[in-house]
C-alpha cells in the first residue's frame, strides 16, 4: 500500500527515512517523525477499531493525548505485548507491530457490527441493571457473554523483560508543558541558576508551535521553538524532559513524570537500557502550561471515520505532511478552527465549506476565508454525517442563534472528511489532582483552575488564554513569578513578540440540534470510547439521575482511558440543558491522576523480585545456604526453617534435629532476635513501666524473661532482658517485633516520660548469636573457652558471663528456649561466622546438629513456652495465656497494660485460655488452626471454644503435642474437646498442662 494521503513535502517528518511497520498483519511504511496515527492516516487506514458497546467502526479523531478511539495492541513478541497504546502518542519505529483490538475477523468487517445496527436500541444506559436478572441462576452465564466484550487490548502472558526506573528529583520550578507558555516560562527563569525541570509529553518539544503558522520574534513559530529549546539546553540548571508526561500532581507539590525512554525506538529496551522512568519530583513551585484540548461537536453520526477535530487536521498536515482525505467540510463555533480549512486548501485539497454556527461571525479568519474564496456558511451546522465506514457526506442546516433548533432547510454536501471544533477546553487535569475544584468561566467557555493550597501557577491556554500572544506573555510572567517565589533573583524579561490576531467571540455550543429529537435521531456521541450518546445522557436525567456524578456513572461517561478529555464538557452541557440548569449548577468535572495512563512497571521501578522488599540476612546466612537449609520468612528476615538431608521428609528432619538437641546438642542461629541496648540511670525504672513483671532487683550478671503488653493489656512482645550494669540493660525482643518494640520504648520516653534519663539503641545487627542447646552444650562450650567458668555453680541458669569463645570476645547468656542446658553465645557479627564454624568443629564429636525455626518451635512447645504472634494474636492478656506469674500488680508504677487487663471484658469468666492439648490417638496431630467444640455433631453454626495455636509431632515424646485456646480452659484440665476437620475427621483431645516435657525444669538448670 502506498502512503496515499502523504503530502510530497513539508511537515516535521524526514521524508528520506522510511520506516516499515505492520498493522493488522499488513506491511506498511511511514517516515521517521511519524506517530503510528499519522502513519496509519498517511496509508489511508480509516478504521482503527470497533466501539466498545455498539461495535461501530471508529477512526482516528485527534492527534494527541485526547484521542479516544485509536487504542492499539503493540508488540512483536509475547513478552512485549502492550495493550491500549494510543496511536497518536506512539512514535513510529522500524519493525513496529501493531494491531487493532476489537473487531472480528477485522475491524473493517466486524461480525458484531450488526449489534451496533440492530441491537443498539436495546442497550440504553443502565440496561445491565434492568435485565439479566431472571432466572437468578443465569447471571453467571449472562456475565460470561458480557465479559467477552470486555477490554480493548490484552496483557502479555509472560513476565516483562524490560527494566524500569524511579528517580527522585528536587526542583525549584517544574514547568509542565513545553508549548508557547511553557517555553517562555522556562526562558524567563533559566538564567536564575535555579533547578528547573521542563517536561513535555511529546517526542518533540514545542506543542502547538510545531504546527502554528504564526511568527514569533520574526521567526516561524516552529523554528522559534527549536531555538528556544537549544537555548534552554545550554543551561546546566535546566533539565529538559521530552516524551515525559507529568501524570500526577500530589500534595505539597509532589509530582510524577512518566518518561518513555525507549518506546520510540523499539518495543523492548535493548542493551540494558531502561524502558521507562518515573521521576518523583518535589518542586518548590510549579507552572502548569498544559494547554488545552479541542472539543468536538456533538451531532448525528459524529463518530464515523473521517470525522476529526479541526486542530488535528492542521496538525496532521503541518507536522506530519498527511492530508487524511480529499474534500473537507469544517464545522466550527470559533475563529481558531478556520486554520484547518486554510491548511487543507494550502495542501492542495478541496474545502467544500466552512460551516460556522455563529449567526454573524466577523473575525479576521472569516475575512481571510472569504478572501481565499472559501465557502463560508454561517448560522448553520452539520447536523448529521453520512457514510458507513468513512464519511461520504454531511447534512447542513441553519440553526437558531442559541443553537437549540434547526431553522433552515437541510442541505446535503459531499465530502470525505469532516472537521469539527466546539472550542477549547483548558487542560486543567493536574490542577484538580490535589482536590482543587475547577471554576467555570463563561468567557472561556470552559473550566479553569480553581483555588489551591499548592504552590502552583498556571500560564497560557490552561487559563483560557488561548491566543499565542497571551500564552507567550503569561508564560514569561509566570516563569518570572515562579522563580522569584522559589527564592531567586532574576531580572525582568519581556515576552517573545507575535502579532495579535483579531478573533471574534466563540459560540458556546456543544450539542448540534437535529431535525429529530435526540432520542429518535441518529446517534450523537459524547464519549466515544464508552459509546455514550447525547440521548443516553438525556435518558439518564429523565430517569432522575440529576447529579452530574450520577449521569457519569449511569452512562460511564468519562471513565475511559482518555478520561473524557473530549467528551466531559459536552456531556455536562447536554445534562445541564436537559435539567434546565447552567453548567456550573450541574457540577464540576474532577480529574484524578493519571493525566494519561502509566505503565505499572514505571511505577514499580526497580522494586520487583529480589528488590521488592529487603531480605535480611544474619552473618551466618551463607553457611545455612551451603548446608541446604530451607528458609522461613519472619518479618523481612530469612531464618533457617529446617536443614533437610538427602531423602528426608520434613518430619524426618524435625525428628532428627529435635532428638539430637534433647539427647546431645543442637545449634540455632538466634541472631535475628531484636536486641536493644538500654542505658541511663532510669533504665531499670523504665523496664518496670513497660514490662508487666518486676525489674527492681535484677542483679548485674542476671537475665530475666519479660512480658510486654499494650495499654489495652494485650500481650504484644516478650523476651529476655539482661542487666549489664546498674544503669545498663540489654533487651531482646521477638524477631518480628524488634522495630515495633524500639519505637514503643521511644514513644513513651519522648512523649510521656522525657524526664527519664535513658537511651535506647538497636544493636540487633551488631551481635551474632549462636545458641547451643542440649545436655552436651557445656562440653562443647568448654572446648572453646578457657576464661569462662562453666560449672553449674559459677555459671547459673539465667546468668550471663563475658569471656573468650573460639578466640573471640563473647557475651554468653545461659538462657533456654528449649528447656535444655543452653548457652547463647554473642559475638560481634564480624566474627559471627568464624565462631559458628568453630562451634561446629568443637561440637562434631557430639554430633552437634543445626536446627531451624521449626525444630525450635517443637522443642519450646514441648516445654509449653509461647511464641508471641503464634500463640497470641493481640486479643489475649497475660492471664489468658496463663502468664499471671509474669504480672506484678504490686509495682508502684501502674505499668503499661495493668489498667487495660482489668477492664470488664478482660476479667469476665469464660474467656479463652491457653492450655495444652493431648490427642486421644497419640499419633494424630491436630492441624494448627483447628477449632474446638464440645459437641461435634451439633448443627452449624457451631459453638466454638477456641483454636489450636501450636501443634507438632514430638519425636522426643513419641506423640503429638499441642497448645490452643479453650473457653475457660484452665478450669477444664482433664476434659475432652473435639476438633472437626475439613476432611471429615474429628480429632479428640484432652485438655492438659501445656508443659509436656520436664515439668520441673531440671534439664535447663543442670
Amino acid at each position: 500500500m502506498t502512503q496515499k494521503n502523504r503530502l510530497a513535502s513539508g511537515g516535521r517528518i524526514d521524508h528520506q527515512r522510511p520506516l516499515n511497520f505492520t498493522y493488522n498483519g499488513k506491511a506498511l511504511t511511514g517516515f521517521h517523525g511519524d506517530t503510528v496515527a499519522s502513519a496509519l492516516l498517511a496509508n489511508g487506514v480509516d478504521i482503527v477499531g470497533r466501539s466498545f458497546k455498539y461495535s461501530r467502526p471508529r477512526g482516528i479523531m485527534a492527534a494527541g493525548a485526547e484521542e479516544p478511539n485509536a487504542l492499539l495492541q503493540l508488540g512483536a513478541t509475547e513478552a512485549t505485548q502492550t495493550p491500549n497504546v494510543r496511536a497518536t502518542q506512539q512514535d513510529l519505529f522500524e519493525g513496529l507491530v501493531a494491531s487493532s483490538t476489537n473487531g472480528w475477523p477485522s475491524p473493517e468487517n466486524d461480525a458484531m457490527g450488526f449489534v451496533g445496527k440492530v441491537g443498539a436500541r436495546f442497550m440504553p444506559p443502565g440496561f445491565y441493571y434492568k435485565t439479566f436478572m431472571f432466572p437468578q441462576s443465569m447471571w453467571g452465564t449472562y456475565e460470561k457473554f458480557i465479559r467477552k466484550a470486555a477490554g480493548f487490548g490484552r496483557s502479555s502472558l509472560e513476565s516483562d523483560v524490560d527494566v524500569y526506573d524511579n528517580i527522585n528529583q528536587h526542583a525549584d520550578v517544574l514547568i509542565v508543558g513545553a508549548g508557547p507558555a511553557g517555553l517562555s516560562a522556562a526562558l524567563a527563569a533559566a538564567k536564575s541558576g535555579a533547578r528547573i525541570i521542563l517536561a513535555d509529553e511529546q517526542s518533540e518539544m514545542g506543542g502547538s508551535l510545531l504546527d502554528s503558522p504564526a511568527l514569533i520574534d520574526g521567526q516561524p513559530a516552529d523554528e522559534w521553538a527549536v531555538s528556544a529549546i537549544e537555548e534552554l539546553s545550554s543551561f546546566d540548571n535546566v533539565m529538559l524532559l521530552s516524551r515525559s508526561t507529568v501524570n500526577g500532581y500530589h500534595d505539597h507539590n509532589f509530582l510524577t513524570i512518566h518518561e518513555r525512554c525507549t518506546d520510540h525506538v523499539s518495543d523492548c529496551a535493548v542493551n540494558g537500557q531502561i524502558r521507562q522512568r518515573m521521576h518523583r519530583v518535589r518542586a518548590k513551585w510549579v507552572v502548569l502550561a498544559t494547554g488545552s484540548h479541542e472539543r468536538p461537536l456533538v451531532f448525528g453520526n459524529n463518530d464515523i471515520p473521517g470525522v476529526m477535530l479541526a486542530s488535528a487536521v492542521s496538525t496532521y498536515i503541518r507536522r506530519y505532511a498527511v492530508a487524511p482525505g480529499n474534500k473537507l467540510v469544517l464545522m466550527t463555533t470559533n475563529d481558531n478552527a478556520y486554520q484547518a480549512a486554510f491548511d487543507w486548501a494550502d495542501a492542495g485539497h478541496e474545502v467544500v465549506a466552512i460551516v460556522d454556527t455563529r449567526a454573524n461571525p466577523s473575525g479576521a479568519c472569516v475575512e481571510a476565508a472569504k478572501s481565499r474564496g472559501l465557502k463560508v456558511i454561517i448560522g448553520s451546522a452539520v447536523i448529521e454525517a453520512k457514510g458507513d465506514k468513512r464519511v461520504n457526506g454531511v447534512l447542513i442546516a441553519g440553526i437558531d442563534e442559541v443553537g437549540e433548533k434547526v431553522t433552515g432547510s437541510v442541505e446535503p454536501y459531499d465530502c470525505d472528511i469532516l472537521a469539527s471544533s466546539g472550542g477549547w477546553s483548558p487542560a486543567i487535569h493536574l490542577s484538580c489532582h490535589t482536590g482543587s475544584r475547577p471554576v467555570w468561566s463563561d468567557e472561556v467557555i470552559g473550566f479553569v483552575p480553581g483555588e489551591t493550597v499548592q504552590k502552583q501557577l498556571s500560564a497560557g491556554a490552561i487559563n483560557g488564554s488561548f491566543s499565542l500572544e497571551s500564552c507567550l506573555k503569561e508564560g514569561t510572567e509566570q516563569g518570572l513569578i515562579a522563580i522569584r517565589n522559589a527564592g531567586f533573583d532574576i531580572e525582568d524579561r519581556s515576552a517573545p513578540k507575535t502579532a495579535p490576531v483579531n478573533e471574534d467571540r466563540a459560540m458556546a455550543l456543544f450539542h448540534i440540534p437535529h431535525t429529530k429529537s435526540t432520542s429518535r435521531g441518529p446517534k450523537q456521541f459524547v464519549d466515544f470510547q464508552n459509546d455514550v450518546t447525547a440521548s443516553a445522557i438525556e435518558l439518564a436525567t429523565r430517569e432522575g439521575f440529576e447529579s452530574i456524578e450520577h449521569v457519569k456513572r449511569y452512562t460511564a461517561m468519562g471513565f475511559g482511558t482518555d478520561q473524557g478529555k473530549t467528551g466531559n464538557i459536552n456531556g455536562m452541557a447536554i445534562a445541564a440543558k436537559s435539567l434546565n440548569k447552567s453548567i456550573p449548577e450541574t457540577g464540576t468535572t474532577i480529574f484524578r491522576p493519571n493525566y494519561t495512563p502509566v505503565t505499572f512497571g514505571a511505577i514499580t521501578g526497580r522494586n520487583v523480585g529480589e528488590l521488592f522488599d529487603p531480605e535480611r540476612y544474619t552473618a551466618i546466612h551463607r553457611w545455612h545456604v551451603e548446608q541446604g537449609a530451607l528458609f522461613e520468612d519472619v518479618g523481612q528476615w530469612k531464618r533457617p526453617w529446617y536443614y533437610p538431608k538427602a531423602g528426608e521428609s520434613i518430619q524426618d528432619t524435625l525428628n532428627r534435629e529435635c532428638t539430637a538437641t534433647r539427647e546431645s546438642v543442637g545449634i540455632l542461629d538466634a541472631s535475628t532476635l531484636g536486641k536493644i541496648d538500654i542505658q541511663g540511670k532510669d533504665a531499670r525504672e523504665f523496664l518496670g513501666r513497660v514490662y508487666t513483671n518486676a525489674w527492681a532487683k535484677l542483679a548485674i550478671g542476671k537475665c530475666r524473661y519479660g512480658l510486654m503488653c499494650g495499654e489495652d493489656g494485650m500481650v504484644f512482645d516478650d523476651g529476655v532482658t539482661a542487666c549489664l550494669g546498674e544503669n545498663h540493660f540489654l533487651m531482646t525482643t521477638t524477631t518480628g517485633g524488634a522495630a515495633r518494640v524500639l519505637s514503643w520504648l521511644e514513644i513513651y520516653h519522648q512523649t510521656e516520660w522525657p524526664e527519664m534519663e535513658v537511651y535506647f539503641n538497636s544493636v540487633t545487627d551488631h551481635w551474632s548469636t549462636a545458641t547451643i542447646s542440649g545436655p552436651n552444650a557445656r562440653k562443647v562450650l568448654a572446648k572453646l573457652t578457657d576464661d569462662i567458668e562453666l560449672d553449674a555453680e559459677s555459671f547459673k541458669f539465667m546468668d550471663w558471663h563475658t569471656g573468650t569463645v573460639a578466640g573471640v570476645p563473647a557475651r554468653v547468656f545461659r538462657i533456654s528456649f528449649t528447656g535444655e542446658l543452653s548457652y547463647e553465645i554473642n559475638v560481634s557479627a564480624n566474627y559471627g561466622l568464624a565462631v559458628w564454624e568453630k562451634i561446629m568443629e568443637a561440637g562434631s564429636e557430639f554430633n552437634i546438629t543445626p536446627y531451624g525455626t521449626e525444630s525450635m518451635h517443637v522443642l519450646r512447645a514441648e516445654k509449653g513456652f509461647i511464641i508471641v504472634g503464634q500463640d497470641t494474636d493481640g486479643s489475649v492478656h497475660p492471664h489468658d495465656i496463663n502468664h499471671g506469674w509474669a504480672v506484678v500488680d504490686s509495682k508502684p508504677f501502674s505499668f503499661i497494660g495493668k489498667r487495660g487487663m482489668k477492664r470488664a471484658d478482660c476479667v469476665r469468666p469464660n474467656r479463652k485460655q491457653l492450655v495444652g492439648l493431648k490427642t486421644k490417638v497419640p499419633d494424630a496431630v491436630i492441624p494448627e488452626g483447628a477449632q474446638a467444640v464440645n459437641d461435634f455433631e451439633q448443627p452449624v453454626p457451631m459453638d466454638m471454644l477456641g483454636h489450636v495455636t501450636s501443634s507438632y509431632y514430638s519425636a522426643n515424646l513419641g506423640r503429638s503435642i499441642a497448645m490452643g485456646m479453650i473457653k475457660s480452659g484452665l478450669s477444664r484440665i482433664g476434659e475432652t474437646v473435639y476438633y472437626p476437620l475439613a476432611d471429615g475427621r474429628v480429632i479428640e483431645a484432652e485438655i492438659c498442662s501445656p508443659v509436656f516435657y520436664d515439668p520441673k525444669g531440671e534439664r535447663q538448670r543442670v
Partner: protein
Amino acid sequence: MFYIYCPYCEEHREEEEFHASGEAHIPRPSDPDNCTDAEWGEYLFFRTNPRGLHHELWVHGIGCRKFFNITRDTVSYEIKETYKIGAKPQFTHAEEKV
C-alpha cells in the same frame, strides 16, 4: 505526599521518612488504676477526628527517630506548623484547648 519540616533536623524531609502516630496531646492518665473503664476506653480509643485542623504526632523514623507534632488541615492536607514535643501549637480551633 507530604513534605514535612522536622523540628529536630530543622529542614523539610520527604513523607517516606516519617510515620504518623495518631492524634497528639493525649497524655496518659496520671492515675490509671483509678480510671473507670469508660475513662480508660476514652484514653485508648476515642479521638476528636476533626475535619479541619488536627494536631498529630509523627515520628521521623527514618531520620532522627524523634517524635514531634504537626498541625495539619485534614482536608487540604496543608501543614500549618510542626513543633517539638512539649511545645504548644500556634494554630488551634477557636473552641480547642491544648
